[in-house]
């Protein structure tokens, strides 16, 4: 299975007090060596920004990012993603970063996208476009 993680899912592994931190931790453990975790290289910037805003030291963020790069395949941004993302912005009124993640997941043929962004990517209208789940929903399905 090819699993796309957006930046909110990635930072939830490193921040233990996030809503889905526990589920993300279990996902990393259960999918170990079985599934392929992918994300866009752009997620690395969002990952850094998210942690910097919560006052994590730059040294720690660098260490975190080096480490997560060993377990998640960060795919370089492709122009085809941007073309698809433009259409997704028109169609779903998504923010630029969200449309880019969705386009990447679709065009890289991921089986599912995991996100903690309940406000935007987990809206019913967006979920009609692709299989997008919260960490909790993913685990429920994965276990059965």
């Amino acid at each position, binding site marked *: 299975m*090819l699993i796309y993680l957006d*930046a*909110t899912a990635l*930072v*939830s*592994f*490193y*921040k*233990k*007090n*996030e*809503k889905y931190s526990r589920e993300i*931790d279990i996902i*990393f*453990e259960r999918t*170990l*060596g079985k599934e*392929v*975790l*992918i994300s866009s290289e752009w997620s690395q910037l*969002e990952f850094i*920004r*998210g*942690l910097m*805003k*919560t*006052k*994590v*030291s730059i040294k*720690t*963020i660098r*260490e*975190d990012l080096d*480490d*997560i790069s*060993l*377990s998640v*395949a960060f*795919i370089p941004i492709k122009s085809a993603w941007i073309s698809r993302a433009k259409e997704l912005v028109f169609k779903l009124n998504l*923010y*630029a*970063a*969200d449309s880019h993640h969705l386009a990447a997941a679709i065009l*890289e*043929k*991921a089986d599912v996208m995991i996100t*903690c*962004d309940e*406000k*935007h990517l987990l809206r019913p209208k967006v979920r009609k476009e692709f299989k997008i789940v919260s960490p909790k929903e993913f685990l429920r399905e994965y276990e059965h």
Partner: protein
Amino acid sequence: MGETETSLIKGVSRKMVELRLVRMRELAEKTTKESKGSAVKAIIEEHEEE
């Protein structure tokens, strides 16, 4: 997804992957102790500020 990325992940031994997970958890503990507020919220807010 290209074959290269796939083989990079699947090519490593389970033991190696497990060691990585242990290391990631150690770092996560450190990050959590240092941090304040929600990183998820910070990312979502940044999207909204675009």
